[in-house]
């Protein structure tokens, strides 16, 4: 019954919202789909919106870290936005630090981080 989450494209960025109670296969599908889409669209940024996620367990946490690493290899920056306080407290207790994953309070701030990132890239070029 695993499904595929829709990935939206906004300019150079990809946006995916985790809104349903995901089974593990859907999580793995998302990982594959995002990698594919980053390459296909030459995306520079990926935003994963978890505002609606009631829990993040070690499996989903690992997926977030993996997506961030894969994107970085493909030259895209990943920002996880909208983590709920209860989820953050639980992750700390669980012992998951999401190393290497950038986070922002909300979508707006996430987009701002990606814009900074793009500006810095343009300055370097």
């Amino acid at each position, binding site marked *: 019954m695993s499904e595929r989450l829709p990935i939206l494209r906004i300019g150079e960025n990809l946006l995916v919202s985790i809104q349903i109670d995901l089974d593990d296969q859907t999580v793995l599908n998302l990982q594959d789909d995002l990698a594919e889409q980053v390459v296909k669209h030459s995306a520079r940024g990926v935003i994963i919106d978890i505002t609606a996620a009631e829990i993040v367990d070690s499996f989903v946490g690992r997926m977030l870290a993996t997506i961030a690493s894969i994107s970085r290899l493909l030259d895209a920056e990943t920002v996880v936005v909208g983590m709920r*306080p209860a989820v*953050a*407290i639980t992750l700390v207790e669980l012992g998951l630090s999401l190393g290497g994953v950038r986070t922002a309070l*909300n979508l707006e701030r996430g987009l701002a981080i990606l814009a*900074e990132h793009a500006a810095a890239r343009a300055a370097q070029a």
Partner: protein
Amino acid sequence: MTGRREELAAGWIEVVSRTLATRVSRAELDRELHELYSAIVEALGSGGLDTGAEAWTEVRALLVELSRNRARQGFSPAETAVSVFALKAGLERQLDQGSPGDVAAYLTLSRLTDALGMFTVDSYTTTREQIISSQAEELLELSTPVVKLWDGVIGVPLVGTLDSARTQVVMEKLLQALVDTGSAKAIIDITGVPAVDTEVAQHLLKTVVAARLMGAECIVSGIRPQIAQTIVALGIEFGDIVTKATLADALRHALRGLSDADSVRGRGASQA
């Protein structure tokens, strides 16, 4: 009891009002006790002396209400229980003129009154406990305000002893405030905290890490020398958490971070 209704009820009310003096109006007592009296008579009428039985539901409800009101108005348990036990005094007076049959009836009613009295004290205690626990909760809420210090900067000034429960409340309130205000910076000021133990320090640490996971930075300010010594002596690792001596220093740091956030990327703020 039905026959000498008015007489008995009047004697009862008199004893009760003497004890409670002016703290409850006579009219209110009249209404309260008459209602109770009728309910007891009715319950007795429908048979059974078991005050836990269905016939006594009305009486129990009235007693719960009575003890609740007394508890809220700050009466002592004795002052509350007298409303029930005084019924005996009224009955005793009738006893002087009574027959042996009356004595037996008195003893039965006396046992009944005792049961109702115990029930009253029980409900009184329950209400008091509810009041105490809700006050404790309110106090916890009051003692942990989250204030907006600047656009994008919130502060939590902590005053008094921090225990594990209170620190947890602070933690949740602070993180929720980050979301509600969209603030990416938070300052936890512990100038007013006399001591910090391992558990509290761990809770503070976890708060900072949780805020980071959400994409915000926490600064701890106002660490007094003794507390700094405790933290080091306990071997608690504060890691790369930003700490400042005063709230002013912390605010300066936060504001600098805010303006930087627009131009420099990769600051520790959102790097978990």
